[in-house]
């Protein structure tokens, strides 16, 4: 199980994540090397046309981007932990 210290660190990182993922990213125009290469090659991102999730780009419909980012963090961590414990249980049983 998660230790108390681990939970505190993960929650703290989620709470400060909008500072990096939303506020500063918007301020300087977050741009990864992949975006630079794709622009040079003329590649088109079709994520919006193919999208299936309401949580696109770590947002929650109807909520401000910063709040949505935090909630997305908790949703994502819950899903990762769920999948992680499932895999742990399956692999732990196989012997």
């Amino acid at each position, binding site marked *: 199980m998660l230790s108390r210290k681990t939970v505190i660190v993960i929650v703290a990182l989620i709470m400060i994540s909008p500072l990096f993922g939303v506020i500063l990213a918007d301020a300087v125009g977050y*741009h990864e090397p992949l975006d630079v290469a794709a622009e040079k090659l003329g590649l088109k991102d079709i994520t919006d046309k193919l999208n299936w999730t309401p949580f696109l780009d*770590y947002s929650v419909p109807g909520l401000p981007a910063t709040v949505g980012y935090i909630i997305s963090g908790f949703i994502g961590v819950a899903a*990762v932990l769920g999948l992680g414990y499932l895999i742990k249980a399956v692999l732990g049983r196989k012997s």
Partner: protein
Amino acid sequence: MHIPDGFLDLPVIIVTYAIAVAWLAYSFYKVGKGVGKDRLSMVPVLAAGIFVAQMLNWPIPGGTSLHFVGGALAGVLLGPYLGSIVIFIVLLVQCLIFHDGGITALGANVLNMGIVDVLVGYATYVLALKLLGPKRRARLVGAFAGGWLGITLAGIVCGLEIGYSSACPFGIAVSVPVMGAWHAALGVIEGFITAFVIDYLSTKADMIPQADLLSGVVRNAKP
């Protein structure tokens, strides 16, 4: 480095999915057979930590930006098989719930971050241990070099994938230098974070990285 939908053509999608599925199946098989099984309890925790760390984008004014990837860290801490499985968990959740990384590019993203980054990071770290011995300095050097080289080569492989998918006849001549050079520069930060975490866990938390044991250089659980 998450490739979105629309960047890859069908042959690249098929090849990258085939490699990703084959390696993950082999990794599950190896762990099922007992390789690194004692580290299974760390899988959910490390995956959650890497997921959150990847949400912390580091915007660099006037240049390109980055976020921590964590493939080398997972490979060093848990070994190549569980390391790949950890990154796969993160990428699958990011793709399915947040559409961060395309479903058509999931194979490529697993190949870049969950295989190349993990294996290169792991192998570089093990090489440093073998050359320098099981010392704190070797762990620092190995983790830094592994984090840096892992992300740089992952960037180059990513450049190959999008370059081959491009309609541009000289696609890889454009994409590989861009991806390689930027990741070599930004990868220094990945190296520092990887070295810091490995050093902290091995000195403060008394946790010996799985790579130390698999390398054969270290034979007991004491750091």
